[in-house]
């Protein structure tokens, strides 16, 4: 069974933010919601690396574990999705998430948050596939159309890989062999229990 994962090859990532705007474009994500972002570590010094980060769709997802209303579910493709009809915007998933993935629209009162929004691996939500209702709440459902997430498909240097975990791991390993270096798959040991197998 396909097990969808993201892998960001930090030797390739140049912080061009294509993944970020591709995501915005594909899902019409509003200002202030960043389903995907690029973080640069060691900024400005030798060893600087940029990593594109979004929901990693963890196995035994921490967000799902802490959700007070149990609004998460994992698809057969290993994608962690949630129902915005059930979400109450409590913010707990953000505390639990190792990757800062959950985003909340700021609502009127104090720091009170609207329903959580996050990367769906371009696979929509619980509504019927590729429907206006699904699009309105979760954005496009590319997986249902046989396409992979747009962020990875548009990545300028092919740094961001998305797809079946085994395949992208093998692509990555092959790169490491070809070039002779690599700094690992960011987030994998945290996100995937079976990562040691990769």
């Amino acid at each position: 069974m396909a097990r969808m994962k993201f892998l960001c090859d930090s030797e390739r990532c140049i912080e061009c933010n294509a993944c970020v705007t591709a995501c915005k474009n594909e899902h019409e994500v509003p200002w202030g919601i960043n389903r995907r972002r690029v973080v640069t570590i060691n900024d400005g010094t030798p060893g600087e690396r940029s990593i594109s980060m979004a929901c990693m769709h963890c196995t035994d997802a921490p967000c799902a574990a802490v959700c007070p209303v149990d609004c998460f579910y994992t698809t057969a493709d290993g994608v962690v999705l949630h129902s915005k009809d059930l979400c109450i915007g409590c913010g707990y998933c953000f505390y639990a998430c190792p990757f800062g993935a959950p985003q909340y629209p700021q609502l009127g009162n104090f720091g009170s948050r609207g329903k959580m929004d996050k990367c769906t691996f371009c696979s929509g939500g619980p509504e019927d596939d590729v429907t206006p209702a699904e699009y309105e709440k979760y954005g496009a459902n590319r997986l249902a159309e046989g396409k992979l997430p747009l962020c990875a498909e548009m990545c300028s240097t092919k740094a961001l890989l998305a797809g079946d975990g085994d395949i992208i791991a093998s692509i990555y390993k092959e790169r490491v062999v070809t070039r002779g270096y690599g700094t690992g798959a960011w987030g994998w040991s945290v996100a995937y229990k079976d990562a040691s197998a990769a």
Partner: protein
Amino acid sequence: MLIKRSAAPRPSASRSRIADAFASVAGAPVDRRSFLRRSGLAAGGLAAVGTLSLTTVRKAEAGPTIPGVPTEIRKNVCTHCSVGCTVTAEVQNGVWTGQEPSFTSPINIGTHCAKGASVRELVHGDRRLKYPMKLEGGEWKRIGWDQAIDEIGSKLTAIRDASGPDSVFLLGSAKFTNEAAYLFRKFAAFWGTNTVDHQARICHSTTVAGVANTWGYGAMTNSYNDINNSKAIMIMGGNPAEAHPVSLQHVLRGKEVNRAQMIVVDPRFTRTAAHATEYVRLRPGSDIPLIWGMLWHIFENGWEDKEYIRQRVYGMDEIRKEVGKWAPAEVERVTGVPGEQVRRIAEIMAKNKPSTLIWCMGITQHTVGTANVRALSILQLALGNIGVAGGGANIFRGHTNVQGATDLGLDVTTLPAYYGLAEGAWKHFARAWEVDYEYLLNRFGKADMPRDAKKKLMEAKGIPTTRWFDGVLNEAKDVDQPDLIRGMVVFGHGGNTVTRMPEVKTGIEKLELLVVADPHPTTFAALSDRRDGTYLLPICTNFETAGSRTASNRSLQWGEQVVKPIFESKDDYEVLYLLSRRLGFADQMFKNIKVDGVHPEPEDILREINRSCWSIGYTGQSPERLKLHMKHQADFDKITLLGREGSPVAGDYYGLPWPCWGTPELKHPGTHVLYDTSKHVMKGGGAFRARFGVERNGESLLADGSYSAGSEIEDGYPEFTYGMLKKLGWDSDLTAEELAVIQRVGGASPDGVSWTTDLSGGIQRVALLHGCSPMGNAKARAVAWNLPDPIPVHREPIYTSRPDLVAQYPTRDDSRDFRVLNIGRTVQTKAVEQKLADKFPILLTSGRLVEYEGGGEETRSNKWLAELQQDMFVEVNVDDARRLGVRDGGMVWVYGPENGAKARMKALVTARVGKGVAFMPFHFAGFWQGADQRGNYPKGTDPIVLGESVNTLTTYGYDPATFMQETKVTLCRIEAA
């Protein structure tokens, strides 16, 4: 208004997932139906939740259309940088609803950067100029197109009648399609001025001058894709990771697959440098010493390609003498780069061939820009890297079509295709346009001027964009034309792009007429305190029109119209047509161009280009061939760019990179790697252009024993003329029709008709038939005797941080060119005398951010991009910040040494810049010396993000050959605000 794609579900894939079970959090598999049942969501119980729900779902702005609405795919080209990424647009009911990766594009292979991935937002147009507007008494008023064109026409005519056509500054755009660029240049010719310029002046004019004077053509010699073949990659004065992100795909793959060394030379540890195997930090403005320092080691160790130099390079011995002055100690003293590192990078480049050299504006935007470019070119010549796959001078141009716009003559020094401004050039275009030469001549100067005076103006270089405001503000005696500049027509160009902005602002205020034709009002409209006489014309983006654009690698790509122009916007073609009609020369100008109502047909404009631009091989790229390439993108190899055998594009290089010789019928494949002697000319081979005569001081300038594969002349040869064909006995290969055209062109002396003026293409065809390059086979010039510094020499920047070096390496003497003065030497001397380096102790340099482009009005209006960079900032070194009491994220005032300039912005404290160096991005405008100018924009057209412009602080300094401005080195003082 705009809606999102629906993309009808693809049955095979979509149903598969529905049937798939999915595991719940608890681990027990539940299919989605049972999840919905379980959660009550399927049963319509949602309403109950809705009434109770106290949190809301933020609705996306637009949902997909009803599934089943047919989706059309249209291909265009990204309108931002010069890489030339194909944009695949999904259109439903005439609305651009989605953007898909363009996997078949050989250039971007599906990818985009932040800008490319967000171009759909450009035609959402939230903040676009929606209808023509006019500034009246300080208020923006909506007007109609008819009124706008009519009033602009009257005012232009009034200026023309009183002061002559040269008093109107025509500023074109690197965002134009090739067709629009050509049309704009033609418009200037018919209007009667050579003062027609565009962004190339301020990005790569020095590159064009430098490399064209070295080996023939002012363009990237190889391609982005070809970097896959490089064994060593040196990037100097460029940050392609931010400026050309998609190019990094090719660079990094070259680095990985070939285990190529990647050297980045830059004063700033850029995003590109982060991926380098060797990072070299040099003092800004000391590029020539570093290159000469490298060559010192190369010559010292005999690493140069001696045979290549002997056969194909002129004057290398003189270079050797100059290089001899740059022993390691002196190089280190001037550049600050450790001697050992200079030797190491020289060795890397010399011993890992083919090695490529990439440069951008860090090299070009200097008072020594042309000399810099020449030094880099000479380095590659010494290593024998030019004309070699994997080698080359890979000059990354800036805007989407800056190469094409340059090629097609948006340049104050030339007509299209670098024909220049001499009588011969005008006569060539008079023939090509089928208008009378005397008619064109009479368009110049004031009506009552004698013919000679008009002819002189017709052949005089115009005022470049870097100096337009000097043409407004200077005294009349200092401007070599009938009158000062009084009106300005700007198409697709920001007002914050040139240095000395306080003077720019005054210049804008003094103009009697300002016409801004752009999708956005731009800084031109908002910067000044003008109250009257500004017209804003809404121009659509290139996604709303069709036409070709030339990527940096000289490939032409045809863009289809994705959607019709939104709001009341019109495309460049139509507006130029309307203006020329109002000014009374449309009939002449569009004599041979099909005009459908008021819409000139871009295909037909390209055909006219094909018929006239012989000198750079813009003749084989017919619209039909270009469209075929776009349709069959998948058939091109992703590295060699060669069309696959058996496909309709077999043997062609993708986009027919110019030169694509002869007529379209000749089926020349285009030239992937320039000057490549390993290939037959009909397969894209060639040699250095014989542009500068056949000998100098008794030494031959023609190649010695080197020639392109299959050439029947197995040695150097001059450029082809009818007379030369006759001498070779090849004139009999000309057809009768070709001969008739040659005789018509040549008149009394047909022997002088050359490959560039022969409108039949016969001379080119016959030369190619015999395996010869029409432009000859010469040596590249290490010594370019016609340039201000024939041998590049180091010269300190005007406002140098090392005044101690000025006595030894002063800038060039004051001069007068391009109709205005260049008083760089005076300014430099004064700066040293006044000890400005003590009062302004930090060196200020500038550059680009990935999210924005150029002046930034368009990209700062794009919400998806604007969100990513919301503040203007200055990068300050950690040590400097500590000393100055500046904290990261805090506000600072930055003061410049001219015009009492100051600017307020955020500080970004980082080790990215060296000690004593500060960096600012150049995309911001809308704040002026601390004041918010948002109110100056017409309502609803203000960019989302505003900020101070770096050019408020930048200072005097112009390259003597092209009047390129100095943006990379000036001085400043930073204080915590």
